[in-house]
């Protein structure tokens, strides 16, 4: 390929990249300006691409209502709780699969665990609803969603942690045994630090999924516990959706995942590459 055509291709690709960036940013831009419009302006027949008046008080209005902030807290509790549970359980199982594949149930069990991610939600919804209803924690509680999200997050955590543990050389643990460490101490001293970046990437993936989940939350909780995803659609005036408030709130709710990604992107990339390339 000649130098010129190579440069042409690069330019085209850059243009393509640029177009995609515009496509990506446009809705986000729209979200941003809608957040500061008045409700009336959002319903204009001809939409405006720049707010006529910047209603910064939209945000204040949302948080004047304490239950809205409470929704963010609820989401946080559920996301964090589930992430911890998924990570712990996934690490235990992942370690066993990595170090003792045969005794731990072999490939079949591992595949079955992963396949759970493929279930259509309805398959889990109805039976779990009735089950939780009969349980002490009921359906409308933190615990219910924390447990429920395990169905999707734990298999992912198990699979990824298994790959990460496989990557931590067994010999290092063996060297630790010969140094006099029991398996548990050896694990903490040697394996855990090596696997930490991977754990971070797994935690991020689980957290973001749980944070953004809507369907189950909508059906199971609503009174005692409210996640922000089910609160946002309630911003209505009669039958009319208050787009500006919905967009404002969702922008605020977007901050934690985005912040997490910016802070931890290196782990994310490394984690994904290990999990996927070697998986």
């Amino acid at each position, binding site marked *: 390929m000649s130098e010129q055509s190579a440069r042409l291709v690069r330019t085209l690709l850059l243009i393509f990249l640029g177009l995609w*960036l515009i496509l990506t940013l446009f809705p986000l831009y729209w979200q941003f300006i809608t957040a500061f419009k008045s409700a009336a302006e959002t319903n204009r*027949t001809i939409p405006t691409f720049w707010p006529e008046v910047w209603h910064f008080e939209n945000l204040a209005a949302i948080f004047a209502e304490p239950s809205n902030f409470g929704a963010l807290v609820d989401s946080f509790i559920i996301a964090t709780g589930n992430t911890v549970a998924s990570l712990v359980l996934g690490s235990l199982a992942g370690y066993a699969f990595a170090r003792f594949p045969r005794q731990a149930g072999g490939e079949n069990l591992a595949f079955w665990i992963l396949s759970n991610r493929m279930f259509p939600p309805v398959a889990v919804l109805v039976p779990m609803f009735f089950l939780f209803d009969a349980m002490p924690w009921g359906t409308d509680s933190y615990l219910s969603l924390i447990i429920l999200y395990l169905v999707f997050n734990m298999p992912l955590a198990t699979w990824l942690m298994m790959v990460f543990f496989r990557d931590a050389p067994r010999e290092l643990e063996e060297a630790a045994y010969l140094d006099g460490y029991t*398996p548990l101490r050896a694990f903490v001293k040697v394996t855990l630090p090596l696997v930490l970046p991977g754990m971070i990437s797994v935690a991020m993936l689980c957290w973001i999924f749980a944070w*953004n989940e809507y369907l189950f939350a909508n059906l199971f909780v609503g009174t005692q516990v409210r996640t922000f995803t089910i609160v*946002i659609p309630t911003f209505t005036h009669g039958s009319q959706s208050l787009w500006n408030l919905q967009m404002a709130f969702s922008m605020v709710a977007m901050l934690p995942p985005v912040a997490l990604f910016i802070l931890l992107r290196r782990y994310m990339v490394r984690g994904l590459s290990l999990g996927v390339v070697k998986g």
Partner: protein
Amino acid sequence: MSVAEMPDWFVHKKLRGNLIVARWVPAALVGLPVLVLFAIVVYPTVWMFYHAFQDTNMMRLFQGNWSFVGWDNFAAVLSSGRFGDSVLHLMQYLLFGCVLQVILGTILALTLYEVVRKEWLRVILLIVMVLPMMLPPSIVGVLWKFLLTPSNGAVNQALLNLGLIDAHVEWFNAGVSLWAIIIADVWNWTALPLLIVYSGRVSLPPAVYEAARVDGAKGWLVMRRITLPMLKEVIAIAFIVRFMDAFKFVDLVYVMTSGGPAQTSELPAYIAFQRGIREFAIGEAAAYAIIIFAISAVLIVLFLKYLKKVLKAQGFA
């Protein structure tokens, strides 16, 4: 040594564990998570499998007087035009949603890595391109519904202003509404294959590229002969991840079109959801779920087998 000559101790060898960890430890380590998963999954699965063969609905469920109907539910699902249509919609979605996302994601990821030279710029662009994934799909649905509102949506207005169309596009008419969903989904999730392929590309061994450079290969040749083959597995996995999620796909349909207008944008999982949660035809919904899961499982297993064969042939697996 032939088998006949094996020493006695070998012939009568008992499988022993190792000295380091007691035999029960691996089982226990896996046991707890599996137990939890069992409780959370096996119970619904069993429940589902059972009720798929019953004529259960909400009332009968409460009264406990459902009765066995054999394969009736399955027959009803498989013979219904509604299901057939939804499968067609699913194909459409898979082709233009799933496949497109993976292709786009790959092109963007590789462009980002190869063509954008400055590290800081790459980081910023990556973050920007990943933003859509950070929004809940339900919100994405709402946002795009808002954007695509035919009468006063920003998209139509922008297209008008740019002179690309003469009249408003009726995004939510029959036949078009599915495209609206697909557009929203592509916007939302292309970032995931992008991230996966990008991570894969980052972790490819630099030594191979140096060798290629020494050999004088560059540009498209390197891409075609080195990068893409090495990334085959990564791209396949990105595809599987999106594929698996596609079969469960409910949020966007629920929020944007409710499957309409007139069921023209329904997807199988959504119908299952509708029938089960909204219309309480639980038995039928269970049959739906099983059928959907079966199809996706079979497809994925087939795909994985095919993938293994292809990779083995090229000396990768």
